[in-house]
């Protein structure tokens, strides 16, 4: 060891004398193309939320709004009539609602991962995508949160799940994973919103300063909290952001771990496995990045943001999908191995039944989309082919939905006593409620891109050549900082 250390030191000494220029192929591609100036970035990004909304936005918004209204109609029907309007039955007491809940929560993982973990890891490429991904997270968690609320038999008593002091002296049951869920999801939502908002403050000030109407000036000004861009503001802001990133990081891992405990704490073969927390977190990041790609690929085209959300960003996200997809594949394989290795006949049956039983199509759609399809990202040709990436990003989320489906209802439908086995079929209300949450999600997302800068302007400026003191275009002029 010592010898190697000494060798390295001597090499370092030598190279300090004459530093050769790195070869061109090792040069990192710029994160903002064409050496765009900070002013161009402000105009470009803030411009999306200014002026008249384009026609495509209005069409998309109308469709989303109608879909959302239909979803609320479904919820009204559900609550006035009973959970029986869904397809849930014995033994499958949790159906689409919980599948959708876990699916949406999973999607809501990418945002905080990108903004918190990648921030701590100094991944500068995150700046072009973190704002939209965080917005996606907040909206996805809102969609997710709807389901546990409305799936209750008596939804009007949902507040009994919160530890509210009451005259009866009855507390929630803290041993129940559903209880942990309440805390995990609400904490995650609160911190995600805070994080998103804190990151927005400098950009809100930009929007305020660019406003031409008093109304806009007032509201942007209100939420910009008097930001002036002073050194002290920046100093406080950076610290707050770092603290929030530190707070959010464990949450990224804990939320889906807690959600997975809903299943692994139970006795049911197919649910009762210790691998679930990491398996669910990997799957969540996998699906979250899938959704970020699904959203950003069309957006960068429609809004002409190809210079800010570059092919390099897409390439990196594809690599994250490949990595997490492989983790998911490993988890699938391990589940089957453990089921076999346990020697428990009930466990073995549950997994055989998952792959070969009446719901074989769900399992194989899931395996195809989550295991085989992402492997295509090993090829650079695929990663740089936008249409293919877009299709795969959608397939990832189809696959992840199927994964939740084959874990939740499929494990339930054939459990311990064959006398109570059944075949679960969703109803039209199940389907339309799920479609309705897409309406909610896209309504909120479209409003977001209309009113807020969808890329963190201040942060993305920080990764340009203009912000790099060592660069020829850098603030210090000649790059002479030694």
């Amino acid at each position, binding site marked *: 060891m010592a010898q190697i250390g000494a060798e390295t030191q001597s090499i370092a000494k030598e190279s300090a004398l004459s530093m050769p220029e790195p070869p061109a192929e090792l040069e990192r591609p710029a994160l903002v193309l064409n050496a765009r100036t900070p002013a161009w970035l402000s105009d470009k990004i803030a411009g999306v939320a200014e002026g008249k909304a384009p026609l495509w936005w209005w069409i998309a918004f109308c469709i989303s709004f109608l879909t959302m209204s239909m979803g609320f109609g479904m919820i009204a*029907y559900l609550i*006035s*009539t*009973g*959970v*029986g*309007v869904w*397809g*849930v*039955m*014995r*033994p499958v*007491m*949790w159906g689409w609602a919980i599948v959708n809940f876990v699916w949406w929560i999973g999607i809501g993982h990418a945002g905080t991962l990108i903004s918190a973990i990648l921030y701590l890891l100094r991944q500068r490429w995150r700046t072009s995508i973190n704002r939209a991904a965080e917005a996606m997270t907040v909206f996805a968690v809102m969609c997710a949160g709807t389901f546990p609320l409305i*799936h*209750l*038999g*008596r*939804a009007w*008593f*949902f507040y*009994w*799940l919160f530890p509210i002091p009451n005259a009866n002296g*009855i*507390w*929630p*049951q803290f*041993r*129940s*994973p*559903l*209880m942990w869920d*309440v805390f995990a999801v609400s904490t995650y939502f609160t911190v995600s919103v805070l994080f998103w908002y804190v990151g927005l403050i400098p950009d809100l000030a930009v929007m305020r300063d660019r406003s031409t109407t008093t109304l806009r000036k007032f509201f942007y000004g209100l939420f910009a909290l008097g930001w002036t861009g002073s050194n002290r503001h920046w100093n406080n802001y950076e610290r707050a952001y770092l603290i929030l990133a530190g707070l959010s990081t464990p949450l990224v891992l804990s939320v889906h771990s807690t959600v997975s405990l*809903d299943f692994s*704490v*139970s*006795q*049911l073969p197919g649910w009762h496995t210790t691998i679930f927390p990491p398996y669910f977190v990997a799957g969540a990041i996998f699906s979250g990045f899938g959704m970020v790609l699904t959203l950003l690929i069309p957006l960068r085209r429609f809004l002409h943001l190809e210079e800010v959300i570059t092919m390099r960003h897409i390439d990196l996200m594809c690599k994250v999908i490949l990595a997490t997809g492989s983790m998911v594949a490993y988890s699938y394989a391990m589940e089957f191995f453990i089921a076999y290795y346990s*020697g*428990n*006949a*009930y466990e073995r*049956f549950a997994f*055989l*039944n998952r792959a*070969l*039983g*009446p719901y*074989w199509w769900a399992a194989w759609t899931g395996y195809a989309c989550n295991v085989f399809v992402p492997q295509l990202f090993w090829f650079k040709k695929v990663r740089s082919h936008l249409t293919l990436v877009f299709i795969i990003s959608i397939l990832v989320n189809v696959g992840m939905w199927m994964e939740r489906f084959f874990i939740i209802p499929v494990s*339930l439908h*054939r*459990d*311990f*006593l*064959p*006398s*109570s*086995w*059944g*075949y679960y079929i969703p109803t039209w209300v199940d389907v339309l409620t799920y479609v309705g949450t897409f309406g909610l999600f896209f309504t909120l997302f479209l409003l977001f891109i209309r009113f807020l800068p969808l890329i963190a302007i201040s942060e993305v400026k920080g990764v340009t050549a203009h912000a790099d003191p060592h660069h020829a275009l850098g603030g210090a002029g000649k790059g002479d900082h030694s």
Partner: protein
Amino acid sequence: METLLILGGNPVYSAPADLDWERTQRHAKTVVRLGYHEDETFALCDWHLPAAHYLESWGDARTGDGTLVAIQPLIEPLFGGQTELEVLARVAGLSPTEPLEIVRETFRGLGLPGGFEANWKRFLHDGFLANSAARTVAMPLDWPGAVKGLAAEQVPLPDGKQLEVVFHRDYGLDDGRHNNNGWLQELPNPITALTWDNAVLISRRTAAELGVKNYDLVDIQFGNRSVRGPVWIQPCLADYSLGLALGFGRTRTGRVGEGAGFNAYRLRTAGAEQFAVGAILRATGSTYSLSCTQNHWSMEGRSIVREANLSQYRAQPHFAKAMDREAPPSERSLYPNPLDELRKRNLEKRGITQQWGMSIDLNACVGCGACVIACQSENNIPIVGKEQVKNNREMHWLRVDRYYAAGPALEASHNDMATDDSQALEKWIDDPQVVHQVMICQHCEAAPCENVCPVNATVHDDEGLNVMVYNRCVGTRYCSNNCPYKVRRFNFFDYNKRPIEGHRLYLGPLAKKQALELELLKLSKNPDVTVRMRGVMEKCTYCLQRIEQAKIAQKIKAGASGDVAVRDGAIQTACQQVCPAEAIVFGDVADPNSRVSRLKAMERNYSVLEFLRTKPRTTYLARVRNPNPRMPDYYAMPFSEAEYWRGYEVTEGKLPSAGGSAREPEETGGGK
């Protein structure tokens, strides 16, 4: 004929088809009818007298052996109905016409020694008259004559072109008299598990030969008469034989029975009331939905119902324990059992600690389902209608599971991965064995349902009951998902308040309620039991209200003596009370001398899914078969047992005593 008097019955519906009763009865100038309901016969009578229900009536009867029994009313007639005795007395111009007086007169006519009033009171108290059975006489049987007579009977053999039709009274609806009774409509048939419908029962081979499958609507033509019904492939049925249940397809019944099944009486002629050969089956091309409460037939080699042959039982009395699965190694919990704490506290506070438990003897159980109805009536369990049953949403707290076990020869034809619909096409169902198992809340000591409820709506009480707090339940349904026995029932709709027929449950608050009937229906509810609303989970309580009544009664009796322990046998659960085979026994498991404790100490005792360590308070006594070795269907071990031991080294009829998943009974020794 001047006047036709019809007492009870419903001949327009149930008389042999060739009598054409509808027209025949018009030969009388006036038709007077005494009946319960406004039914098919009611519509064609000139006078209809409302009949009193037998539970509202005085009467007398003789049992099969001739013993005289008393029929005593339980309730003042609700609608001023008349009994048959009363109507006959009036028609015959007798006096008195009061049914009670008539019965007393008859009793007086027996001329018993002693005072009449004393005898009468004794008769009512006992319910029967002692020593009134008929004398038995020895009758010589002419064996050769009987054999010759039977041989002379020419019965054509059925085949694909002339099928045999077997008429049987429906298990729940009888001859159709209970057609408008929701409890009986929804009672699963003990073998087919069908509800709300009858079906054309047919064997797998015959169905394949005729090219029909489950749910196909078929016409059965017999002479110039035909009926239309759905096909149900029934395991174990003889080939070329169709089973048709009577009692369905009523044209004029209440709103419960309307539209349930088809009327098999239309094929049934005088002289061929039980069976007839010569029917033709033709598929119509359309299908019909049937609601069955048990979709999966095979036990999949799991040790749920445990059975052995008598010889095996003698060789190894602990055969049921040998079928225990390997449980997790830990015997002691990290934390003290809160139940032990409760018991200790209870012991200190009240000086007693009674712990409730149940034993169900599978050897005695015949799967009749009386317990299902008793439980439904005791615990205000709603019916949910055909559509909901089809969706596995029936509310029965107590269900009778029925499994078919495949014989070793045909076992290979079973595909456990296939959909439930394809079971009916598998060969093994031609010759299975059938087992039944009563399944209710097991009142686990370590109940998996309890720790997953986020609002503490299902908890343990200090007498070991797993209790459900309805008004705390928010309906997450997690408890049901985590219940390995799937005995929890969820109110998906307001079954008690909203009309269930048609699609009207799905109309929610927009569906019109039947206000008038609901007033009457209130009488069917047990005032000691809560009626549950929608969105709430429910399940067997071990008839908690009866336990409480017994405890209160004992406390009153004890007075200052402080002897508040409820006597063994003082509490009978509803299912236990009606069980004709006395298969269900309930009592205090903390008292080693109680009947239930002694049953649980038997070597046949086992818990279902014991390896999960849920420690159920409800345990089962394994079943012992006693097949005759000289019969062609003799097997060394019951089919279900052979299914379980498949893959283990098992010599003829002898079980492994250790190794594999089997362990010495001493090791298991039940829950701690």
